[in-house]
């Protein structure tokens, strides 16, 4: 595993060497955070609650959502299709390295940079506006939250890796990725809590992997779920990790056999 931790480290170095891109990206994240804060503050100004959330819970959701966007959705798997189409994948295939693990650690590097930055931004905003955050009352909630976000990170990686692998069969994987990201962020609860949606729609969504990326972990954090709902949530998250992990392996295996190494 040492080699993969080195991959993690070298991408950190690269990330920090590209300062302009880094600060632009963080500025974008900050704009999103402040916009969401003002939107939900305005909505809850004359109410005690909205969709089952009091002000403190909603602010915690918005801030947590921003941190999880930095952790779960930060990824460099969008590079995979280009690496395939332009033959840069060859550089990895020639070496004794597992590409899936390599890209996972590359993602971890990206995620950790974004996570640290998001925590600093969110803390700054919370201090600046004296925001009241609703922390979990029980230690087990923290543990379950950590477990849920670990699962969410792996789940998103597999989803995103599969879409990247489309590059083996088409040069046009940009469209599907854009669509996936848009649908995922919407249905993951990365724009608003899914509770605001109609009940039937929520029930259908829970059968898909997306709610386990942001909505479920934040509900665990806010202690809004009973034991049965927590167990059910983890079972669904586990099922999707296994299913998408298996599919990622299958797609990669088929894709590499079809790889034309063009451009290299």
């Amino acid at each position, binding site marked *: 595993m040492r*080699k993969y931790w080195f991959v993690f480290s*070298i991408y950190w170095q690269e990330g920090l*060497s590209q300062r302009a891109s880094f600060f632009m990206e963080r500025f974008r994240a900050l704009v999103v955070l402040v916009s969401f804060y003002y939107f939900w503050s305005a909505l809850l100004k004359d109410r005690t609650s909205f969709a089952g959330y009091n002000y403190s819970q909603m602010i915690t959701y918005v801030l947590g959502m921003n941190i999880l966007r930095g952790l779960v959705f930060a990824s460099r798997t969008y590079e995979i299709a280009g690496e395939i189409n332009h033959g840069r994948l060859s*550089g990895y295939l*020639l070496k004794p390295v597992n590409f899936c693990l390599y890209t996972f650690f590359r993602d971890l590097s990206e995620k950790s940079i974004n996570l640290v930055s998001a925590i600093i931004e969110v803390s700054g905003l919370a201090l600046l506006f004296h925001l009241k955050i609703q922390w979990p009352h029980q230690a087990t909630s923290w543990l379950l939250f950590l477990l849920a976000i670990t699962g969410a990170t792996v789940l998103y990686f597999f989803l995103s890796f599969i879409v990247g692998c489309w590059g083996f069969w088409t040069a046009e994987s940009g469209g599907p990725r854009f669509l996936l990201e848009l649908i995922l962020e919407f249905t993951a609860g990365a724009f608003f809590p899914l509770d605001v949606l109609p009940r039937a729609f929520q029930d259908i969504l829970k059968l898909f992997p997306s709610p386990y990326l942001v909505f479920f972990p934040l509900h665990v954090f806010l202690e809004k779920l009973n034991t049965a709902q927590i167990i059910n949530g983890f079972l669904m998250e586990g099922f999707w990790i296994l299913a998408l992990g298996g599919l990622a392996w299958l797609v990669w295996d088929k894709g590499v*056999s079809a*790889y034309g190494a063009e451009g290299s």
Partner: protein
Amino acid sequence: MAARPDEGSCYNKRMPIIEVSHLTKTFRVPQKTPGLTGALKGLFSRHYKEVQAVRDIAFSIAEGELVGFLGPNGAGKTTTLKMLSGLLHPTSGDARVLGYIPWKRERAFQKQFTMVMGQRTQLWWDLPAWDSFLLNKEIYEIPEAQFQETVKELADLLEIQDLLEVPVKKLSLGQRMKAELACSLLHRPKVLLLDEPTIGLDVLMQQKVREFVLAYNKRWKATVLLTSHNMDDVAELCPRVILINHGQLLFDGTLDQFRQKFEGKMLTEAMRAAFTATH
């Protein structure tokens, strides 16, 4: 000028390191009618054409041999090299490199060979070459002492000691190629597949790269298969040449045999004659 290795005809008596038999690769290439109408038609129905890049070729290369793999553009050289490195699965036929089936991409195999593509770099653009070296050290699991020794040896041979801490994007093409070569050889591979290693380099730098390849070949008894459009590379480095055109093997023998066959013509002219004969 680099000293030519002994022109031996005994290459087939030594242990074969690369063995190729009946190797064939066919690509399915999408066809598109030119213009906007063609693009619109292509949205709904796409036609494919089968292109045979490599047709039933066979050869064997022994340990320590330096072989020039020649042919015009589109002859099938790089496709063959890609199959031998495990990047491509063949349509049919068989190949063994160091006893391994390349496209199975076993770790033990990957640790013993390298492929250098003159138009590709594995070096990190924004970071010094040293960081890419460290990454390869971890990837190939090279022990620290061996790594330090190899880096020193390669850096001395290639005269790049002062360049290792400079970001790669600040290096000239020639300096980058030398750093690329060093990075590819840190794990002391037994087999070198070199695809146009001197492309784009000036005459002086080409000479240095050739001298280095020869020195590495002698130092480690490495087997080298080299493609190049630069006939000086072949004339100075390779006692044996394999000629390929339209995916088919045209000639496999020593450089002298090749020259005799074409009545003592210069290498470039002899090549031209060989390829013209196959049209």
